[in-house]
């Protein structure tokens, strides 16, 4: 059993065990020691351009919680399925200004900001809410690992990249708090619930 499946089944158990009490979402990943302090796993730093060619970094998301996926627009395999679930999340959370949706392209050579903008237009999304980010390819592939998403270049894979379709929930501090399988629509409602729960924890802190 993979660690993800294990974590996910543990999450499910917790959800079943205490479905009435609004328990705090877990922090996923291993803790690290930094300056003698133990901190939760944090996603990597990025310097990427959005669909309007504006440079964005982690700091631009410090006031938001967001879901992230890794994809590319010419992806002939799982991407449209994952995009459909990202769109469901985008639509479900459209009235919560605290929530953003982020898609990193792992194919920056083809996926220019202009192309990402067209892709978003075709999806009919709110470009302020759903941010597409393109940047250095190797940096993005390394970044994916810190989101617990497998992404690597593979000439034999459809479209030239092999990657997993996980959709990952990140809190304001950059910690990974939940995820769904973008290729399995039945896992999306749970993630939407978790997003609402996390958002509420900032709006109504205990």
């Amino acid at each position, binding site marked *: 059993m993979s660690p993800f499946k294990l974590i996910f089944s543990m999450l499910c158990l917790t959800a079943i065990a205490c479905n009435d009490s609004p328990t705090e979402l877990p922090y996923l990943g291993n803790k690290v020691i930094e300056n003698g302090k133990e901190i939760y796993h944090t996603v990597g730093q990025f310097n990427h351009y959005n669909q309007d060619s504006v440079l964005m970094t982690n700091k631009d998301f410090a006031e938001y919680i967001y879901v992230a996926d890794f994809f590319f627009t010419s992806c002939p395999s*799982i991407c*449209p399925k994952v995009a*459909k679930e990202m769109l469901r999340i985008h639509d479900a959370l459209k009235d919560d200004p605290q929530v953003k949706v982020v898609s990193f392209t792992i194919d920056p050579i083809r996926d220019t900001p202009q*192309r990402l903008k*067209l892709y978003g*237009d*075709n*999806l009919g999304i709110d470009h302020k809410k759903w941010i597409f980010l393109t940047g250095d390819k190797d940096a993005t592939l390394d970044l994916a690992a810190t989101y617990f998403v497998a992404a690597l270049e593979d000439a034999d894979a459809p479209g030239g990249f092999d990657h997993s379709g996980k959709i990952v929930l990140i809190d304001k501090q950059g910690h990974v708090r939940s995820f769904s399988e973008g290729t399995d629509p039945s896992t999306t409602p749970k993630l939407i619930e978790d997003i609402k729960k996390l958002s509420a924890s900032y709006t109504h802190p205990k």
Partner: protein
Amino acid sequence: MIILGFSFMLACNESPYMQGKRLYVANCQNCHMEDGSGLAKLVPSLQESALLGSPVIACIIKNGIQDTIRNDQTFLVKEMPAFGKLSATEITNITNYINHSWYKNFKETNITEIESALKNCP
């Protein structure tokens, strides 16, 4: 009687074009989705497609579409990968599966029609 009823129900749920269905699942479903609904304006829906029943569909499967010019209000990016490795037989099977699933005026296409359509692709 009950068994007969069951087998009838099963027969109704199964497409008669199982080979076409398998090819659809392997080649088309990732983008056009299981129910053919596509994805917003990114992937056209097959359910209402004006191309259903047209021999042009064979050419699109074989050669794909490359048109990224923003000149069409309905589709901003028209792009579909080519499935050049598919044989005329396989394209016939897919065409029949798609048309049978979503085309109201369904009529079976045979390989001769597909072969001649492929010869006259633009």
